[in-house]
Protein backbone atom coordinates (compact mmCIF):
# COMPACT_ATOMS: atom_id res chain seq x y z
CA UNK A 1 0.00 0.00 0.00
CA UNK A 2 1.14 3.48 -0.71
CA UNK A 3 1.71 5.85 2.16
CA UNK A 4 -1.61 7.59 2.96
CA UNK A 5 -1.88 10.97 1.21
CA UNK A 6 -2.92 12.62 4.48
CA UNK A 7 0.35 11.62 6.18
CA UNK A 8 2.09 14.85 7.19
CA UNK A 9 5.79 15.17 7.98
CA UNK A 10 6.34 16.75 11.40
CA UNK A 11 10.16 16.50 11.45
CA UNK A 12 12.91 14.42 9.81
CA UNK A 13 11.73 11.20 11.38
CA UNK A 14 8.24 11.96 12.74
CA UNK A 15 5.02 11.69 10.68
CA UNK A 16 1.40 12.28 11.58
CA UNK A 17 -1.94 10.87 10.44
CA UNK A 18 -4.71 13.33 11.38
CA UNK A 19 -7.89 12.30 13.21
CA UNK A 20 -9.81 12.89 9.98
CA UNK A 21 -8.06 9.91 8.35
CA UNK A 22 -10.34 7.31 9.90
CA UNK A 23 -13.73 7.71 11.56
CA UNK A 24 -13.58 7.41 15.34
CA UNK A 25 -9.95 8.50 15.82
CA UNK A 26 -9.76 10.41 19.09
CA UNK A 27 -6.13 11.51 18.66
CA UNK A 28 -3.73 11.67 15.68
CA UNK A 29 -1.37 8.77 14.99
CA UNK A 30 2.36 9.52 15.03
CA UNK A 31 4.69 7.25 13.11
CA UNK A 32 8.42 7.32 13.67
CA UNK A 33 10.96 6.62 10.94
CA UNK A 34 12.92 8.19 8.14
CA UNK A 35 11.11 8.71 4.83
CA UNK A 36 12.53 5.42 3.57
CA UNK A 37 11.36 3.43 6.61
CA UNK A 38 7.90 5.01 6.59
CA UNK A 39 7.46 4.44 2.86
CA UNK A 40 8.19 0.77 3.45
CA UNK A 41 5.81 0.32 6.38
CA UNK A 42 3.29 -2.41 5.50
CA UNK A 43 -0.38 -1.47 5.13
CA UNK A 44 -1.22 -2.68 8.61
CA UNK A 45 0.92 -0.07 10.36
CA UNK A 46 -1.18 2.92 9.24
CA UNK A 47 -4.50 1.12 9.69
CA UNK A 48 -3.63 -0.29 13.08
CA UNK A 49 -2.06 2.88 14.48
CA UNK A 50 -5.31 4.62 13.48
CA UNK A 51 -7.43 1.84 15.05
CA UNK A 52 -5.57 2.27 18.35
CA UNK A 53 -6.33 6.00 18.19
CA UNK A 54 -10.06 5.14 18.46
CA UNK A 55 -9.75 3.48 21.89
CA UNK A 56 -11.33 5.28 24.88
CA UNK A 57 -9.07 7.35 27.10
CA UNK A 58 -6.05 7.49 24.74
CA UNK A 59 -3.76 10.44 25.42
CA UNK A 60 -1.97 12.69 22.90
CA UNK A 61 -1.14 10.24 20.08
CA UNK A 62 -1.20 6.65 18.98
CA UNK A 63 2.48 5.94 18.24
CA UNK A 64 4.35 3.50 16.06
CA UNK A 65 8.13 3.09 16.38
CA UNK A 66 10.60 2.94 13.43
CA UNK A 67 10.69 -0.89 13.47
CA UNK A 68 6.90 -1.07 13.26
CA UNK A 69 4.98 -3.67 11.31
CA UNK A 70 1.58 -5.30 11.33
CA UNK A 71 0.58 -7.04 14.58
CA UNK A 72 -2.58 -8.32 16.26
CA UNK A 73 -4.70 -5.32 17.26
CA UNK A 74 -1.90 -2.83 17.89
CA UNK A 75 0.92 -2.78 15.35
CA UNK A 76 4.24 -4.19 16.54
CA UNK A 77 6.01 -1.02 17.65
CA UNK A 78 2.73 0.40 18.93
CA UNK A 79 2.74 2.67 21.98
CA UNK A 80 -0.31 4.27 23.59
CA UNK A 81 -0.98 5.96 26.93
CA UNK A 82 -4.43 5.77 28.50
CA UNK A 83 -6.02 7.72 31.30
CA UNK A 84 -6.36 5.11 34.09
CA UNK A 85 -9.83 6.36 35.08
CA UNK A 86 -11.37 6.83 31.66
CA UNK A 87 -9.22 4.59 29.51
CA UNK A 88 -8.84 0.94 28.74
CA UNK A 89 -6.37 -1.92 29.01
CA UNK A 90 -6.03 -4.18 25.97
CA UNK A 91 -4.12 -7.49 25.62
CA UNK A 92 -3.71 -6.58 21.93
CA UNK A 93 -1.64 -3.59 23.07
CA UNK A 94 0.75 -5.83 24.96
CA UNK A 95 1.04 -8.91 22.76
CA UNK A 96 0.78 -12.66 23.19
CA UNK A 97 4.36 -12.93 24.43
CA UNK A 98 4.03 -10.76 27.52
CA UNK A 99 7.39 -9.26 28.61
CA UNK A 100 9.23 -10.66 25.68
CA UNK A 101 12.47 -8.78 26.33
CA UNK A 102 16.23 -8.46 25.93
CA UNK A 103 19.07 -8.94 28.35
CA UNK A 104 22.62 -7.79 27.76
CA UNK A 105 25.53 -9.24 29.76
CA UNK A 106 29.13 -7.98 29.62
CA UNK A 107 32.31 -10.02 30.13
CA UNK A 108 35.95 -8.95 30.49
CA UNK A 109 36.97 -11.24 27.62
CA UNK A 110 38.01 -10.02 24.20
CA UNK A 111 37.04 -11.52 20.88
CA UNK A 112 40.61 -12.83 20.50
CA UNK A 113 40.35 -14.67 23.81
CA UNK A 114 36.96 -16.20 23.02
CA UNK A 115 37.48 -17.22 19.39
CA UNK A 116 39.67 -20.30 20.08
CA UNK A 117 36.90 -21.63 22.35
CA UNK A 118 33.93 -20.33 20.37
CA UNK A 119 32.56 -23.65 19.11
CA UNK A 120 32.78 -25.29 22.51
CA UNK A 121 31.22 -22.23 24.13
CA UNK A 122 28.29 -22.04 21.70
CA UNK A 123 27.78 -25.82 21.75
CA UNK A 124 27.65 -25.76 25.55
CA UNK A 125 25.24 -22.81 25.59
CA UNK A 126 23.04 -24.66 23.09
CA UNK A 127 23.06 -27.77 25.28
CA UNK A 128 22.43 -25.98 28.54
CA UNK A 129 19.79 -23.46 27.45
CA UNK A 130 16.98 -25.48 25.89
CA UNK A 131 15.30 -24.00 22.83
CA UNK A 132 12.82 -25.00 20.18
CA UNK A 133 9.33 -26.51 20.08
CA UNK A 134 8.10 -27.78 23.45
CA UNK A 135 11.43 -27.47 25.26
CA UNK A 136 11.51 -27.69 29.04
CA UNK A 137 13.91 -26.04 31.47
CA UNK A 138 16.31 -27.42 34.07
CA UNK A 139 14.53 -25.73 37.00
CA UNK A 140 12.02 -28.36 37.98
CA UNK A 141 9.06 -26.74 39.71
CA UNK A 142 5.74 -28.10 40.78
CA UNK A 143 2.72 -25.95 40.10
CA UNK A 144 2.68 -24.41 43.60
CA UNK A 145 6.32 -23.36 43.39
CA UNK A 146 5.65 -21.90 39.97
CA UNK A 147 2.96 -19.67 41.50
CA UNK A 148 5.67 -18.18 43.74
CA UNK A 149 7.83 -17.53 40.67
CA UNK A 150 5.08 -15.64 38.83
CA UNK A 151 4.36 -13.46 41.85
CA UNK A 152 8.01 -12.82 42.72
CA UNK A 153 9.90 -12.85 39.41
CA UNK A 154 13.66 -12.42 39.80
CA UNK A 155 13.32 -12.16 43.60
CA UNK A 156 12.46 -15.86 43.58
CA UNK A 157 15.65 -16.45 41.56
CA UNK A 158 17.71 -14.51 44.10
CA UNK A 159 16.31 -16.55 46.99
CA UNK A 160 16.99 -19.79 45.15
CA UNK A 161 20.56 -19.12 44.10
CA UNK A 162 19.97 -18.17 40.47
CA UNK A 163 20.73 -14.45 40.78
CA UNK A 164 23.08 -11.91 42.31
CA UNK A 165 21.52 -8.87 44.04
CA UNK A 166 23.10 -6.70 41.32
CA UNK A 167 21.20 -8.58 38.58
CA UNK A 168 17.90 -7.44 40.07
CA UNK A 169 19.08 -3.85 40.42
CA UNK A 170 19.98 -3.89 36.72
CA UNK A 171 16.63 -5.25 35.51
CA UNK A 172 13.63 -3.11 34.54
CA UNK A 173 11.21 -3.10 37.52
CA UNK A 174 14.04 -4.81 39.47
CA UNK A 175 12.79 -8.03 37.93
CA UNK A 176 9.38 -8.00 39.65
CA UNK A 177 6.24 -6.04 38.94
CA UNK A 178 4.33 -5.40 42.16
CA UNK A 179 0.72 -6.53 42.31
CA UNK A 180 1.04 -9.83 40.46
CA UNK A 181 -1.73 -12.13 41.71
CA UNK A 182 -1.46 -15.78 40.73
CA UNK A 183 -5.14 -16.28 41.59
CA UNK A 184 -5.90 -14.34 38.40
CA UNK A 185 -4.23 -16.81 36.05
CA UNK A 186 -5.85 -19.97 34.74
CA UNK A 187 -4.70 -23.44 35.67
CA UNK A 188 -4.13 -24.03 31.98
CA UNK A 189 -1.58 -21.19 31.89
CA UNK A 190 0.24 -22.70 34.88
CA UNK A 191 0.25 -26.15 33.28
CA UNK A 192 1.69 -24.72 30.08
CA UNK A 193 4.41 -22.70 31.79
CA UNK A 194 5.61 -24.38 34.96
CA UNK A 195 8.25 -26.50 33.22
CA UNK A 196 9.49 -23.77 30.86
CA UNK A 197 11.62 -21.61 33.18
CA UNK A 198 15.11 -21.41 31.66
CA UNK A 199 14.09 -21.96 28.02
CA UNK A 200 14.54 -19.69 25.03
CA UNK A 201 11.53 -20.68 22.92
CA UNK A 202 11.61 -20.44 19.15
CA UNK A 203 10.60 -18.02 16.37
CA UNK A 204 12.67 -14.86 16.75
CA UNK A 205 14.08 -15.83 20.15
CA UNK A 206 17.81 -16.34 20.38
CA UNK A 207 20.99 -15.98 22.41
CA UNK A 208 24.08 -14.45 20.88
CA UNK A 209 27.72 -14.09 21.75
CA UNK A 210 28.58 -10.66 20.37
CA UNK A 211 31.53 -8.32 20.07
CA UNK A 212 31.69 -4.57 20.71
CA UNK A 213 34.22 -3.67 18.03
CA UNK A 214 36.10 -0.41 18.43
CA UNK A 215 34.66 1.08 15.24
CA UNK A 216 31.13 0.32 16.46
CA UNK A 217 31.34 2.36 19.67
CA UNK A 218 29.42 5.55 18.89
CA UNK A 219 29.44 7.08 22.35
CA UNK A 220 32.49 5.94 24.36
CA UNK A 221 31.37 7.78 27.51
CA UNK A 222 27.99 6.09 27.64
CA UNK A 223 29.50 2.76 26.58
CA UNK A 224 31.91 2.96 29.52
CA UNK A 225 29.08 3.87 31.90
CA UNK A 226 27.18 0.77 30.75
CA UNK A 227 30.22 -1.54 31.13
CA UNK A 228 31.51 -1.66 27.54
CA UNK A 229 35.03 -0.62 28.41
CA UNK A 230 37.55 -2.22 26.06
CA UNK A 231 38.02 -2.81 22.34
CA UNK A 232 36.57 -6.05 20.97
CA UNK A 233 34.88 -6.82 24.27
CA UNK A 234 32.66 -9.90 24.24
CA UNK A 235 29.08 -9.60 25.45
CA UNK A 236 26.09 -11.95 25.55
CA UNK A 237 22.64 -10.81 24.42
CA UNK A 238 19.43 -12.77 24.49
CA UNK A 239 15.79 -12.37 23.57
CA UNK A 240 12.99 -14.43 25.09
CA UNK A 241 9.75 -14.09 26.95
CA UNK A 242 7.08 -15.66 29.12
CA UNK A 243 6.69 -18.76 26.93
CA UNK A 244 3.45 -20.77 27.01
CA UNK A 245 2.43 -19.18 30.30
CA UNK A 246 2.26 -15.64 28.94
CA UNK A 247 0.64 -16.80 25.72
CA UNK A 248 -2.13 -18.52 27.64
CA UNK A 249 -2.70 -15.49 29.90
CA UNK A 250 -3.08 -13.31 26.79
CA UNK A 251 -5.42 -15.79 25.06
CA UNK A 252 -7.57 -16.27 28.19
CA UNK A 253 -8.07 -12.56 28.74
CA UNK A 254 -8.62 -11.73 25.09
CA UNK A 255 -11.82 -13.78 25.41
CA UNK A 256 -12.75 -12.48 28.88
CA UNK A 257 -12.54 -8.91 27.59
CA UNK A 258 -14.28 -9.67 24.28
CA UNK A 259 -17.17 -11.05 26.26
CA UNK A 260 -17.72 -7.96 28.44
CA UNK A 261 -16.41 -5.12 26.29
CA UNK A 262 -19.56 -4.27 24.38
CA UNK A 263 -22.15 -6.13 26.43
CA UNK A 264 -21.19 -4.64 29.79
CA UNK A 265 -19.18 -1.53 28.98
CA UNK A 266 -20.62 -0.47 25.63
CA UNK A 267 -17.19 -0.24 23.97
CA UNK A 268 -17.20 -0.91 20.24
CA UNK A 269 -13.95 -1.69 18.49
CA UNK A 270 -12.77 -1.98 14.91
CA UNK A 271 -10.83 -5.22 15.23
CA UNK A 272 -11.47 -8.20 17.57
CA UNK A 273 -7.78 -8.27 18.49
CA UNK A 274 -8.24 -4.82 20.06
CA UNK A 275 -10.50 -6.37 22.74
CA UNK A 276 -10.28 -4.23 25.86
CA UNK A 277 -12.04 -3.26 29.08
CA UNK A 278 -11.98 -0.14 31.22
CA UNK A 279 -8.75 -0.25 33.20
CA UNK A 280 -10.64 0.23 36.49
CA UNK A 281 -13.19 -2.51 35.73
CA UNK A 282 -12.91 -5.87 37.56
CA UNK A 283 -11.94 -7.58 34.30
CA UNK A 284 -9.38 -4.87 33.46
CA UNK A 285 -7.79 -5.15 36.90
CA UNK A 286 -7.79 -8.96 36.75
CA UNK A 287 -5.98 -8.87 33.42
CA UNK A 288 -3.48 -6.31 34.75
CA UNK A 289 -2.67 -8.64 37.69
CA UNK A 290 -2.41 -11.70 35.44
CA UNK A 291 -0.25 -9.78 32.97
CA UNK A 292 2.12 -8.88 35.83
CA UNK A 293 2.44 -12.60 36.63
CA UNK A 294 3.54 -13.21 33.03
CA UNK A 295 5.92 -10.24 33.22
CA UNK A 296 7.48 -11.76 36.34
CA UNK A 297 7.68 -15.25 34.82
CA UNK A 298 9.61 -13.77 31.94
CA UNK A 299 12.04 -11.87 34.19
CA UNK A 300 12.64 -15.15 36.05
CA UNK A 301 13.14 -16.98 32.76
CA UNK A 302 15.83 -14.55 31.59
CA UNK A 303 17.41 -14.59 35.07
CA UNK A 304 17.71 -18.38 35.16
CA UNK A 305 19.23 -18.25 31.67
CA UNK A 306 21.83 -15.76 32.99
CA UNK A 307 22.66 -18.30 35.70
CA UNK A 308 23.26 -20.88 32.95
CA UNK A 309 25.37 -18.41 30.95
CA UNK A 310 27.57 -17.87 34.02
CA UNK A 311 27.95 -21.63 34.52
CA UNK A 312 28.85 -22.29 30.88
CA UNK A 313 31.43 -19.47 30.62
CA UNK A 314 32.96 -20.55 33.91
CA UNK A 315 33.15 -24.13 32.69
CA UNK A 316 34.63 -23.32 29.27
CA UNK A 317 37.19 -20.77 30.47
CA UNK A 318 38.02 -22.45 33.82
CA UNK A 319 37.50 -19.28 35.83
CA UNK A 320 34.77 -18.00 38.12
CA UNK A 321 32.03 -15.81 36.61
CA UNK A 322 33.41 -13.00 38.74
CA UNK A 323 36.94 -13.43 37.32
CA UNK A 324 35.40 -13.40 33.84
CA UNK A 325 33.70 -10.10 34.66
CA UNK A 326 30.26 -11.50 33.81
CA UNK A 327 28.00 -8.65 34.73
CA UNK A 328 24.51 -7.81 33.61
CA UNK A 329 24.31 -4.52 31.71
CA UNK A 330 20.53 -4.31 31.75
CA UNK A 331 17.29 -6.16 31.02
CA UNK A 332 14.45 -4.47 29.15
CA UNK A 333 10.90 -5.56 28.47
CA UNK A 334 9.10 -5.13 25.15
CA UNK A 335 5.50 -6.18 25.66
CA UNK A 336 3.89 -4.62 28.73
CA UNK A 337 1.37 -2.18 30.14
CA UNK A 338 2.64 -0.09 33.03
CA UNK A 339 1.42 2.77 35.18
CA UNK A 340 3.93 5.59 34.81
CA UNK A 341 4.00 9.31 35.54
CA UNK A 342 4.43 11.61 32.56
CA UNK A 343 3.96 15.31 31.92
CA UNK A 344 1.01 15.81 29.58
CA UNK A 345 0.17 19.35 28.49
CA UNK A 346 2.20 20.77 31.38
CA UNK A 347 0.60 18.58 34.04
CA UNK A 348 2.22 15.57 35.71
CA UNK A 349 -0.17 12.65 35.38
CA UNK A 350 -0.29 8.94 35.97
CA UNK A 351 -1.08 7.05 32.76
CA UNK A 352 -1.24 3.44 31.68
CA UNK A 353 1.35 3.01 28.94
CA UNK A 354 0.98 0.09 26.55
CA UNK A 355 4.22 -0.78 24.78
CA UNK A 356 4.02 -3.59 22.24
CA UNK A 357 7.27 -4.27 20.50
CA UNK A 358 8.65 -1.10 22.00
CA UNK A 359 11.24 -0.44 24.69
CA UNK A 360 10.90 1.99 27.57
CA UNK A 361 13.72 4.53 27.20
CA UNK A 362 13.82 6.76 30.29
CA UNK A 363 16.07 9.80 30.03
CA UNK A 364 18.84 10.88 32.42
CA UNK A 365 17.80 11.56 36.00
CA UNK A 366 14.47 9.80 35.82
CA UNK A 367 13.07 7.65 38.61
CA UNK A 368 12.86 3.96 37.76
CA UNK A 369 16.34 3.48 36.32
CA UNK A 370 19.29 2.10 38.35
CA UNK A 371 21.17 4.70 40.44
CA UNK A 372 24.43 3.96 38.62
CA UNK A 373 22.82 4.81 35.26
CA UNK A 374 20.87 7.86 36.41
CA UNK A 375 23.28 10.47 35.05
CA UNK A 376 23.31 8.75 31.66
CA UNK A 377 19.78 7.58 30.88
CA UNK A 378 18.38 4.07 30.70
CA UNK A 379 20.21 1.47 28.61
CA UNK A 380 18.05 0.31 25.70
CA UNK A 381 18.86 -3.01 24.04
CA UNK A 382 17.48 -3.55 20.56
CA UNK A 383 18.00 -6.84 18.82
CA UNK A 384 18.76 -6.95 15.13
CA UNK A 385 18.66 -9.97 12.88
CA UNK A 386 21.10 -12.78 13.61
CA UNK A 387 23.28 -11.74 10.68
CA UNK A 388 23.55 -8.01 11.11
CA UNK A 389 24.03 -7.22 14.77
CA UNK A 390 22.18 -5.40 17.53
CA UNK A 391 22.34 -2.06 19.30
CA UNK A 392 22.85 -0.67 22.74
CA UNK A 393 21.24 2.76 23.00
CA UNK A 394 20.35 5.15 25.80
CA UNK A 395 17.22 7.05 26.72
CA UNK A 396 17.29 10.83 26.21
CA UNK A 397 15.44 13.85 27.62
CA UNK A 398 13.58 14.49 24.37
CA UNK A 399 12.06 11.01 24.67
CA UNK A 400 9.14 12.67 26.47
CA UNK A 401 7.51 13.01 23.01
CA UNK A 402 6.76 9.25 22.97
CA UNK A 403 6.29 8.82 26.74
CA UNK A 404 9.94 7.70 26.70
CA UNK A 405 9.47 4.80 24.31
CA UNK A 406 11.67 3.69 21.42
CA UNK A 407 12.20 0.80 18.99
CA UNK A 408 12.69 -2.80 20.12
CA UNK A 409 14.33 -4.54 17.18
CA UNK A 410 14.65 -4.38 13.46
CA UNK A 411 11.13 -5.55 12.51
CA UNK A 412 10.24 -8.08 9.83
CA UNK A 413 9.82 -7.13 6.20
CA UNK A 414 9.44 -10.61 4.73
CA UNK A 415 6.91 -13.29 5.71
CA UNK A 416 8.17 -16.51 7.26
CA UNK A 417 6.93 -18.43 4.25
CA UNK A 418 8.78 -16.21 1.77
CA UNK A 419 11.94 -16.39 3.87
CA UNK A 420 11.80 -20.18 3.82
CA UNK A 421 11.53 -20.13 0.06
CA UNK A 422 14.36 -17.67 -0.36
CA UNK A 423 16.84 -18.99 2.20
CA UNK A 424 18.00 -22.48 3.09
CA UNK A 425 18.94 -23.24 6.66
CA UNK A 426 22.01 -25.38 5.90
CA UNK A 427 23.37 -22.88 3.39
CA UNK A 428 22.76 -20.05 5.82
CA UNK A 429 24.71 -21.86 8.54
CA UNK A 430 27.66 -22.26 6.12
CA UNK A 431 27.52 -18.66 4.92
CA UNK A 432 27.33 -17.32 8.45
CA UNK A 433 30.22 -19.53 9.50
CA UNK A 434 32.23 -18.12 6.58
CA UNK A 435 31.52 -14.65 7.92
CA UNK A 436 32.66 -15.65 11.40
CA UNK A 437 29.29 -16.43 13.04
CA UNK A 438 28.96 -19.93 14.50
CA UNK A 439 25.28 -20.98 14.71
CA UNK A 440 23.51 -23.80 16.52
CA UNK A 441 19.81 -24.17 15.95
CA UNK A 442 16.95 -26.44 17.00
CA UNK A 443 15.41 -26.02 13.54
CA UNK A 444 17.16 -25.31 10.24
CA UNK A 445 13.89 -24.19 8.67
CA UNK A 446 13.22 -21.94 11.66
CA UNK A 447 16.71 -20.52 11.11
CA UNK A 448 15.95 -19.75 7.45
CA UNK A 449 12.86 -17.82 8.56
CA UNK A 450 15.12 -15.59 10.65
CA UNK A 451 17.63 -14.76 7.89
CA UNK A 452 18.97 -11.21 7.93
CA UNK A 453 17.22 -10.36 4.68
CA UNK A 454 13.81 -10.99 6.30
CA UNK A 455 14.35 -7.98 8.55
CA UNK A 456 14.60 -4.23 8.25
CA UNK A 457 18.00 -2.58 8.33
CA UNK A 458 18.80 -2.28 12.05
CA UNK A 459 21.19 0.63 11.36
CA UNK A 460 18.32 2.58 9.78
CA UNK A 461 16.08 1.87 12.77
CA UNK A 462 18.75 3.06 15.23
CA UNK A 463 19.44 6.14 13.09
CA UNK A 464 15.75 7.02 12.90
CA UNK A 465 15.35 6.75 16.65
CA UNK A 466 18.28 9.14 17.08
CA UNK A 467 17.04 11.53 14.41
CA UNK A 468 13.61 11.65 16.04
CA UNK A 469 15.20 12.21 19.46
CA UNK A 470 13.74 9.18 21.22
CA UNK A 471 17.05 7.41 22.02
CA UNK A 472 20.75 7.72 21.19
CA UNK A 473 23.03 4.96 19.86
CA UNK A 474 25.83 3.87 22.21
CA UNK A 475 27.30 0.83 20.43
CA UNK A 476 26.56 -1.71 17.77
CA UNK A 477 27.20 -5.29 18.84
CA UNK A 478 27.94 -7.86 16.15
CA UNK A 479 27.48 -11.62 16.56
CA UNK A 480 30.18 -14.32 16.53
CA UNK A 481 28.00 -17.06 17.98
CA UNK A 482 24.26 -17.66 17.91
CA UNK A 483 21.85 -20.18 19.37
CA UNK A 484 18.35 -20.25 18.00
CA UNK A 485 15.19 -22.06 18.87
Amino acid at each position, binding site marked *: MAVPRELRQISDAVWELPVSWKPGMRVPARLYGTRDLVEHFDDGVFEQAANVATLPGIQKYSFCMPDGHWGYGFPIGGVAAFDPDEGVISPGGIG*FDINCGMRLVATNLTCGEVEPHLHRLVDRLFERIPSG*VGSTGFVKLDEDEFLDVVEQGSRWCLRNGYALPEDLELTEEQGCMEGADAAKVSHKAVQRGHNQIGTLGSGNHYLEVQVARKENIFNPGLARAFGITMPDQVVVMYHCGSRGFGHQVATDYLHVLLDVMERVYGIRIIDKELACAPFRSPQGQDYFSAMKCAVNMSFANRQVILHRVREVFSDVFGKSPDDLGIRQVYDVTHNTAKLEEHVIDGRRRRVLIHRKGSTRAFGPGMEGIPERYKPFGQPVIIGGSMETGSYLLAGVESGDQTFYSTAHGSGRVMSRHSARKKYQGKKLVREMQFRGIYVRTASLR*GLAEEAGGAYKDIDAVARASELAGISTPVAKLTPIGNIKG
Partner: protein
Amino acid sequence: MPYTYLEEIAIADVAFEARADTREALFVEAGDALMNVMVEDLKSVRPLVRRSFHAQAEDLERLLFEYLQQFIFFKDAEQLLLRVSKVAITQETGVLGLTAEAAGEKIDPSRHDLNADVKAVTLHRFRVRNEPAGLIATVVLDI
Protein backbone atom coordinates in the same frame (compact mmCIF):
# COMPACT_ATOMS: atom_id res chain seq x y z
CA MET B 1 -3.61 -31.03 0.08
CA PRO B 2 -6.71 -30.25 2.17
CA TYR B 3 -4.88 -27.40 3.88
CA THR B 4 -2.62 -24.74 2.44
CA TYR B 5 -0.50 -22.04 4.03
CA LEU B 6 -1.32 -18.50 3.03
CA GLU B 7 1.57 -16.32 1.98
CA GLU B 8 1.28 -12.76 3.17
CA ILE B 9 -1.53 -12.53 5.71
CA ALA B 10 0.65 -12.20 8.78
CA ILE B 11 4.19 -11.15 8.11
CA ALA B 12 5.77 -12.47 11.31
CA ASP B 13 3.47 -15.46 11.65
CA VAL B 14 1.76 -18.29 9.79
CA ALA B 15 -1.72 -18.44 8.28
CA PHE B 16 -3.51 -21.45 6.81
CA GLU B 17 -6.70 -22.37 5.07
CA ALA B 18 -8.25 -25.82 5.66
CA ARG B 19 -11.00 -27.32 3.51
CA ALA B 20 -13.33 -30.27 3.96
CA ASP B 21 -16.84 -31.47 3.22
CA THR B 22 -17.91 -31.93 6.82
CA ARG B 23 -17.30 -30.04 10.08
CA GLU B 24 -15.62 -33.10 11.56
CA ALA B 25 -13.22 -33.51 8.64
CA LEU B 26 -12.49 -29.78 8.68
CA PHE B 27 -11.41 -30.00 12.30
CA VAL B 28 -9.10 -32.94 11.56
CA GLU B 29 -7.46 -31.01 8.69
CA ALA B 30 -7.12 -27.82 10.73
CA GLY B 31 -5.45 -29.76 13.55
CA ASP B 32 -2.94 -31.25 11.12
CA ALA B 33 -2.31 -27.81 9.58
CA LEU B 34 -1.42 -26.42 13.01
CA MET B 35 0.76 -29.39 13.94
CA ASN B 36 2.52 -29.27 10.57
CA VAL B 37 3.75 -25.75 11.42
CA MET B 38 5.70 -27.26 14.32
CA VAL B 39 6.79 -30.59 12.83
CA GLU B 40 7.73 -30.98 9.19
CA ASP B 41 6.73 -34.60 8.66
CA LEU B 42 3.44 -35.49 10.33
CA LYS B 43 4.07 -39.14 9.55
CA SER B 44 6.99 -39.07 11.97
CA VAL B 45 4.51 -38.61 14.86
CA ARG B 46 3.74 -42.13 16.07
CA PRO B 47 0.40 -42.79 17.83
CA LEU B 48 1.95 -43.95 21.12
CA VAL B 49 -0.14 -42.00 23.63
CA ARG B 50 -3.79 -41.01 23.47
CA ARG B 51 -5.56 -37.91 24.68
CA SER B 52 -9.19 -36.83 24.39
CA PHE B 53 -10.12 -33.24 23.63
CA HIS B 54 -13.39 -31.82 24.90
CA ALA B 55 -14.77 -28.38 24.14
CA GLN B 56 -18.03 -26.48 24.13
CA ALA B 57 -18.94 -23.28 22.33
CA GLU B 58 -21.89 -21.35 21.05
CA ASP B 59 -20.75 -21.39 17.43
CA LEU B 60 -18.55 -23.40 15.12
CA GLU B 61 -15.78 -20.78 14.89
CA ARG B 62 -15.36 -20.59 18.64
CA LEU B 63 -15.45 -24.39 18.83
CA LEU B 64 -12.64 -24.61 16.26
CA PHE B 65 -10.65 -22.01 18.21
CA GLU B 66 -11.00 -23.99 21.47
CA TYR B 67 -10.11 -27.22 19.67
CA LEU B 68 -6.94 -25.81 18.09
CA GLN B 69 -5.84 -24.38 21.44
CA GLN B 70 -5.70 -27.93 22.79
CA PHE B 71 -2.85 -28.92 20.47
CA ILE B 72 -0.82 -25.98 21.81
CA PHE B 73 -1.76 -26.83 25.38
CA PHE B 74 -0.60 -30.46 25.17
CA LYS B 75 2.58 -29.42 23.32
CA ASP B 76 3.58 -27.14 26.23
CA ALA B 77 2.08 -28.95 29.21
CA GLU B 78 3.11 -32.50 28.25
CA GLN B 79 5.50 -31.93 25.28
CA LEU B 80 3.18 -33.99 23.09
CA LEU B 81 2.81 -33.82 19.33
CA LEU B 82 -0.72 -34.99 18.58
CA ARG B 83 -2.86 -35.81 15.58
CA VAL B 84 -6.59 -36.22 15.68
CA SER B 85 -8.20 -39.11 13.85
CA LYS B 86 -11.78 -38.76 14.96
CA VAL B 87 -13.95 -35.77 15.81
CA ALA B 88 -17.54 -35.85 17.00
CA ILE B 89 -19.57 -32.64 17.14
CA THR B 90 -22.93 -32.59 18.89
CA GLN B 91 -25.52 -29.88 19.30
CA GLU B 92 -27.75 -29.47 22.34
CA THR B 93 -29.85 -26.46 23.30
CA GLY B 94 -27.85 -24.09 21.15
CA VAL B 95 -24.46 -25.26 22.42
CA LEU B 96 -22.00 -27.16 20.28
CA GLY B 97 -20.00 -29.89 21.97
CA LEU B 98 -16.83 -31.50 20.70
CA THR B 99 -15.02 -34.69 21.50
CA ALA B 100 -11.86 -35.55 19.61
CA GLU B 101 -9.60 -38.55 19.92
CA ALA B 102 -5.96 -37.58 19.56
CA ALA B 103 -2.87 -39.76 19.42
CA GLY B 104 0.79 -38.92 19.25
CA GLU B 105 4.06 -38.95 21.15
CA LYS B 106 6.52 -36.91 23.19
CA ILE B 107 8.61 -34.45 21.24
CA ASP B 108 11.94 -36.03 20.34
CA PRO B 109 14.23 -33.68 18.39
CA SER B 110 16.26 -36.68 17.20
CA ARG B 111 13.20 -38.16 15.49
CA HIS B 112 11.03 -35.14 14.75
CA ASP B 113 12.12 -32.53 12.24
CA LEU B 114 10.92 -29.49 14.18
CA ASN B 115 9.99 -26.07 12.82
CA ALA B 116 8.62 -23.05 14.65
CA ASP B 117 6.74 -23.19 17.93
CA VAL B 118 3.11 -22.02 17.77
CA LYS B 119 2.40 -19.57 20.60
CA ALA B 120 -1.30 -18.97 20.09
CA VAL B 121 -4.30 -19.17 17.80
CA THR B 122 -5.34 -15.60 16.99
CA LEU B 123 -8.70 -14.09 16.14
CA HIS B 124 -7.27 -12.19 13.19
CA ARG B 125 -9.34 -13.14 10.12
CA PHE B 126 -10.41 -16.27 11.98
CA ARG B 127 -13.32 -17.60 10.00
CA VAL B 128 -15.22 -20.73 8.99
CA ARG B 129 -17.27 -20.27 5.84
CA ASN B 130 -19.63 -22.59 4.04
CA GLU B 131 -19.10 -22.46 0.29
CA PRO B 132 -20.50 -24.60 -2.50
CA ALA B 133 -17.18 -26.45 -2.62
CA GLY B 134 -17.33 -27.22 1.11
CA LEU B 135 -16.31 -25.78 4.45
CA ILE B 136 -13.27 -23.50 4.57
CA ALA B 137 -11.50 -22.37 7.74
CA THR B 138 -8.98 -19.51 7.77
CA VAL B 139 -6.67 -19.39 10.78
CA VAL B 140 -3.70 -17.19 11.71
CA LEU B 141 -1.22 -18.56 14.25
CA ASP B 142 1.10 -16.47 16.39
CA ILE B 143 4.68 -17.76 16.13
